[in-house]
């Protein structure tokens, strides 16, 4: 048994043993659970994937005369301004006013909220336009201004109501037409299968009952430091599990962080053909090895994580999801899965390669004494 305080003391002294969620598998294989749990202090995880439920609260430095913003657009993308005078929320999937959408199918969705967030983080200048009705205290009725993140905003808080899905569906298309979904392009007649999880590296698969992750957990978020705010929207604990791990989309997290210290490399605007715009978010969560049970969870491997295969041509859109099959991440990551009597190509949407890079960065931060663990409140499911 170790406490988080003890682990932090070791981090301070530069003595903490930190490994990533892939490395821990081999370590435990060699040394066994008991010895590994004594030796290893932290296991780092990572995920870099499309996370549509993301956005930024922005607070604009007031112009002179001041404005109580009623409606606001940045690069023609509207943000929600129903808050105090200079606050607004910019969502990752919001599209510009003139976007052709899916009028010519499949739409391209070249620029949306996610791209705008990426541009802001990159320090690019964007065009702000706001209207107001004018009050005695805020007389201005219109504002047009070029703005940059660090120069023109007091605060920018990335605040995502649902990120970091514990597991997800794998998507197929049983119809005879190509379909375009948030799970990518799905070819007709079981022509491919797409999936979206970092599997054995994924944060919530390494702490499947959120024993250590909860409100206040310090994390890697978009290249900077962020915090878990607790369970995200649609988080579900009572789900079907295999070896303790959900086979369906299970828990989610809500997270926040200061956008000004993040990096465009880890927050990328996305255009999904025929579907819309989104944001790819990099998240890394450290798992403190407080006891053997915690260590055991982190040894989860791709072949033990199963995911349900769902048809996105009819079953998903009409809310009649039937489990067509269950496959594991080892099969999916091999690039081919046997389904319906044939071998079909398996295609990822989330980046395993970059998820591992996140786990490595977090490992380095902790080893170098730059990142300390926090004691979360409201843990558990």
């Amino acid at each position, binding site marked *: 048994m170790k406490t988080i305080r003890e682990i932090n003391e070791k981090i301070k002294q530069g003595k903490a043993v930190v490994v990533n969620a892939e490395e821990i598998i081999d370590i435990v294989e060699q040394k066994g659970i008991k010895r590994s749990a004594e030796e290893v202090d932290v296991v780092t995880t990572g995920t*870099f994937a*499309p996370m549509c439920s993301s956005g930024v609260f922005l607070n604009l430095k007031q112009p002179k005369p001041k404005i109580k913003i009623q409606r606001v657009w940045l690069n023609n993308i509207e943000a929600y301004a129903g808050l105090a005078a200079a606050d607004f929320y910019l969502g990752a999937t919001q599209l510009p006013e003139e976007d052709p959408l899916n009028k010519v199918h*499949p739409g*391209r969705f070249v620029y949306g909220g996610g791209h705008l967030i990426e541009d802001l983080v990159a320090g690019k200048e964007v065009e702000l336009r706001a209207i107001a009705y004018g009050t005695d205290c805020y007389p201005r009725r219109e504002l047009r201004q070029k703005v940059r993140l660090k120069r023109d905003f007091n605060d920018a808080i990335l605040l995502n109501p649902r990120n970091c899905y514990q597991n997800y569906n794998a998507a197929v298309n049983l119809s005879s037409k*190509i379909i*375009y979904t948030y799970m*990518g*392009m799905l070819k007709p007649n079981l022509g*491919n299968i*797409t999936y979206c999880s970092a599997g054995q590296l994924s944060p919530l698969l390494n702490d499947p009952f959120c024993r250590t992750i909860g409100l206040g957990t310090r994390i890697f978020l978009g290249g900077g430091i962020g915090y878990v705010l607790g369970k995200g929207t649609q988080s579900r604990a009572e789900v079907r599990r295999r070896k303790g791990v959900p086979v369906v989309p299970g828990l989610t997290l809500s997270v926040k962080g200061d956008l000004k210290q993040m990096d465009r490399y880890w927050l*990328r*605007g*996305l*255009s*999904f*053909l*025929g579907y819309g715009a*989104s944001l*790819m978010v990099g998240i890394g969560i450290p798992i403190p090895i407080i006891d053997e049970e915690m260590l055991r969870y982190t040894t989860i491997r791709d072949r033990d994580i199963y995911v349900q295969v769902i048809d996105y041509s009819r079953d998903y859109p009409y809310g009649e999801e039937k489990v067509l099959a269950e496959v594991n991440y080892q099969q999916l*990551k*091999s*690039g081919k899965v046997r389904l319906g009597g044939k071998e079909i*190509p398996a*295609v*990822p*949407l*989330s*980046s*395993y*390669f*970059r998820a*591992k890079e996140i786990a490595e960065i977090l490992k380095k931060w902790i080893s170098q004494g730059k990142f300390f663990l926090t004691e979360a409140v409201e843990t558990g499911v």
Partner: protein
Amino acid sequence: MLSKKVVLTFPQPLLDKAIVYRLIKDYNLIFNILQARITPDEEGVMILEIRGKREDYKAGVDYLRETGVKVRPLNESIFWRESECTHCGLCTDVCPTQALTLERPEMRVRFEKKRCIACELCISLCPVRAIERRVNKKRKSDEDI
């Protein structure tokens, strides 16, 4: 005898075969289909290597254009901007020649330019637009297409 690689875009994919076969019959051109695909926009794209006499070639291309087929020389290259790529792997699903592949077990995406036939299927599919088409410097032999 001249030999050229061209990209044909058909507004309706089903028409392509019949039109192309007329090139043999009426214009004495020999061709080799390097690639035939239906794009996400439901257009047919065919990459052909055409051989024949210069006059026949010109007449054949004129005929194709009259029927509404877009003809352009295969003188464009596809660039994969590695620094922009997130290594998600989505593009590897549509690449017909395995120019884009996922290296396992790292799950790192790799682009082998010499395998790429510039079919462009990957371009609109890449969610971060990491793949770009760039026109090569014009060579003399391409000018008359």
